[in-house]
């Protein structure tokens, strides 16, 4: 059974990676109509360099993702402290309320945001995108930091306090350093969630302020050239790098006690 299982896993990997690799290769193919045989060319990457629309959208995406990472990590970590370390009435209800942003299809959340932001005068654009992205990233931050909390013992903080430390001081000097890898992991995760977010952005972007996925979508629908493959390749490699760094930091599934 063992070799059969391994062959099957390789087949699954081929299924998962073939389209991605083909898409990436086509960014290096000279033909604008994706015709084969393959002839290597960097012309699409050169064209990308002078495509200010795509580059601006890319820069917007990075800025939004960075601000989202900072805000979502700050807010989510605070909430995680309360949800992981304290008991109070309504705690399980509040934990349940973290699920809608993840579990409800983004199409529904996105169109609801569009209606509400229009009706309330918040409008669309960068600030609207930030409100939406941070809300989507917060639940993931609470989950990742909450998992981190489970690996540190609560009595370390109690020990610090019984030795005369204030709760705030104990948190910053004892708990936070132990939690640091989880918080950094959560921030990277929030960055990746925002960078890859398309549906919400699609409804909240304006013609003057778009993100890279929104711009790629409108290019795909209007007729595209291998420039789209080039920028897509950059985007994929970028988010893969962020996620691999996240995997090193947060070690998902690693619940060994850090004592």
């Amino acid at each position, binding site marked *: 059974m063992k070799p059969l299982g391994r062959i099957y896993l390789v087949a699954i990997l081929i299924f998962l990676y073939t389209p991605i690799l083909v898409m990436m290769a086509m960014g290096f193919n000279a033909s604008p109509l994706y015709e084969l045989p393959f002839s290597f060319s960097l012309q699409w990457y050169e064209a990308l360099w002078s495509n200010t629309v795509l580059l601006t959208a890319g820069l917007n995406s990075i800025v939004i993702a960075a601000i989202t990472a900072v805000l979502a990590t700050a807010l989510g970590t605070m909430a995680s402290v309360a949800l992981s370390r304290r008991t109070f009435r309504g705690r399980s209800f509040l934990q349940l309320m973290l699920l*809608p942003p993840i579990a409800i*299809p983004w199409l529904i959340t996105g*169109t*609801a*945001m569009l209606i509400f932001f229009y009706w309330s005068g918040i409008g669309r654009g960068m600030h609207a995108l930030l409100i939406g992205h941070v809300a989507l990233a917060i639940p993931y931050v609470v989950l990742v930091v909450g998992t981190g909390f489970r690996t540190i013992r609560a009595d370390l903080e109690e020990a610090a306090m019984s030795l005369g430390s204030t709760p705030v001081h104990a948190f910053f000097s004892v708990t936070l350093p132990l939690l640091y890898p989880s918080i950094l992991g959560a921030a990277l995760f929030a960055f990746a969630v925002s960078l890859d977010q398309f549906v919400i952005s699609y409804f909240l972007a304006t013609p003057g302020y778009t993100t890279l996925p929104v711009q790629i979508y409108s290019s795909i629908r209007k007729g595209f050239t291998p420039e789209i493959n080039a920028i*897509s390749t950059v*985007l994929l490699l970028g988010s893969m790098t962020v996620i691999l760094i996240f995997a090193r930091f947060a070690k998902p599934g690693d619940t060994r006690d850090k004592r």
Partner: protein
Amino acid sequence: MQNDRLTSASERGPLGPRSRRVLPSWVSTMVLLLPTYGWLTLAVFLPLLTMFVFSFMSATPMGKAPIVFTLKQYRAFIDQPYLVGIGINSLLIGFWTTLFCAVLGFLAAVALVQSTLGKTREILLILILLPFWTNGLVRVFSWTMVLRENGFLDNLLHMIAPDAGSIGFLYTRYAIVVGLVHGYLPYMILTCYIALVAIDDAIIEAASSLGARWWTILFKILVPLAAPGLISGSVLIFIPVIGSFMEPRILGGRVGVTMGTVIEDQFTQAFNWPLGASLSFTLLAVVLAIFATFSGVLRRGTAV
């Protein structure tokens, strides 16, 4: 306030000289929670509420036309019978995507548990999950390179059989399902894997030493014990799939009309927001019904 208390030492009151003025713990709990839940209220809960109100309006409140509150948007499935067909189309796409993910993903998880160990397994898991956390739109786009006429698939075929015609099937329902399976398969592999690693190897060894064949082990031991993983994976795939719109648009072309694309149209082309809102809420009702049905299994699945 007896319900709001710190579980840690501070409930025993000020301790030592450095703790000067300690706030009641419920105040600090509130301060910690308020930003997150305030933000979620602004960005998710109030919008959903507003959309609910909009779904009862007779027209989008943008022009001068008077707005009347009505139930007519919810009668759309009766008034516009073609929507029923589109709804069924969405459910079928959801069904086939979930089924393919369940079969392929469960077997992949079995293969991971039975055929790999240690570092190899870790690397394989990361490789399987990596595409899941990259841009879904780009992955859907990449399938157009493979499935289009004279695309990668056709070129592969022509290397073997130069005279064969085109087998590219871009702009069909099959293309939509392939793209969606590609997008959500890693998720099913993960949920099944988590369920399967928890199974004690001794059970399988005992069964095979007592003469059980592989299919007996598969259907009598692995499938029943991994059922929570299969079910939570299926629920968490079916729900986003019935709400998907970019996959049908890009891979389905003209045949790619689903509930998702109809809802998108109401907001981006037709500007009939009340209809879009009522369709969104109908979809949300389906989603919540599914969650309610499987909440027991899902809670056990996430409690790991």
